């Protein structure tokens, strides 16, 4: 009787893992962009991402550089969260954190994850290729602190581009079906 209840409570095979967060980290390991899609602390996300950076470092060692592919696959699985990474040739790291506890620790296939990570990285490429985006401005839109008057023309333009980048990332994540 107890066993049957457990079987009913276990989520069905094939239930989708949800994307908990997306992060982009630059070549100097400084965070470029962080976004949580579930309720949680930003600090927790930073911790998860930071611990994943070690896995990136491993592939950048001189011995393993030659055989390195861009898509690094599953880097980490802790606290019911699976961390996937993608390292571009410019050493920009794209990281996706999946909440797999809800789907019974079913880990999605590599093809699906590689596709998602590539599309997120392409959002980044599209945004910085925009001639009106000033390189060096942060990708992350500053969190709204009430009372700030709208900044001068070019700052406003950058803010718009930052928001549009965030929208693109969100759109890719919504469209992604991780089964």
């Amino acid at each position, binding site marked *: 009787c107890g066993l049957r209840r457990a079987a009913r409570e276990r989520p069905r095979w094939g239930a989708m893992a949800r994307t908990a967060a997306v992060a982009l980290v630059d070549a100097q390991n400084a965070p470029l962009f962080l976004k949580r899609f579930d309720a949680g602390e930003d600090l927790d996300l930073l911790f998860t991402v930071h611990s994943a950076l070690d896995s990136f470092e491993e592939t950048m060692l001189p011995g393993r550089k030659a055989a390195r592919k861009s898509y690094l696959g599953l880097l980490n699985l802790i606290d019911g969260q699976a961390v996937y990474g993608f390292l571009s040739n410019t050493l920009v790291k794209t990281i996706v954190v999946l909440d797999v506890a809800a789907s019974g620790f079913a880990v999605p296939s590599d093809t699906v994850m590689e596709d998602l990570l590539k599309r997120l990285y392409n959002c980044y490429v599209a945004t910085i*290729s*925009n*001639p009106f985006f000033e390189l060096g401005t942060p990708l992350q839109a500053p969190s709204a602190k009430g009372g700030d008057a709208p900044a001068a023309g*070019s700052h406003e333009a950058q803010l*718009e581009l930052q928001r549009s980048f965030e929208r693109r990332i969100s759109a890719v994540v919504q469209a992604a079906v991780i089964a």
Partner: protein
Amino acid sequence: WRAPASKQSERSARGRPASAAAPSTMQNRYTRLGETCYGKLDKISAELFTLTYGALVADLVRNYKDVDEVNGKLEQMGYNIGLRLIDEFLAKSGVPRCGSFRESAEIISRVGFKMFLNVTPEVGNWNEQGTSCTFALEDNPLEDFVELPSSAKGLKYCNLLCGVLRGALESVHLAVESEIVSDALMGDARTEIRLTLKHIIEDQTNEDYHDE
């Protein structure tokens, strides 16, 4: 000899102008010419071109705060490019004199745009006199990755192309007006340039010139 006469009457009976059959072969001929010329020319990477143009426009926007001034500058630059580009175009393609403005428009689209940008804009929206048409670019290589910020509202991003058309055609004695009537960056479906023939430039001799 009856056969040709009946064909003629058939064509006019159907209500189409007599030269209806000719444009399609003419169009095919120019399409083929465009492809051959495109094949012969040296190529550069499309992304390099797009990013270079983007950097140029972004720089202009930063330096001249007024958007209309930027549009004017782009058009002027295009004009200077067009004056020189026409010689390159005529040398590489060897197209003969055009019989009509319609033919010119087809050549511009199928040979000119194809050779230099590898796109063939759709020529359409002709006016009654056949002196004005639009070139519709479905997929514009200049506009990849570009998102106009709201501070640049009114910026005609492809104004350089309008200038090129004006400069090139002026060198072959056609005074034209070209302007962007719809822009994919401003939310329209696609980018369209309207080209209007104003008049044919007659050779102007100096007043002091006397026939000896």
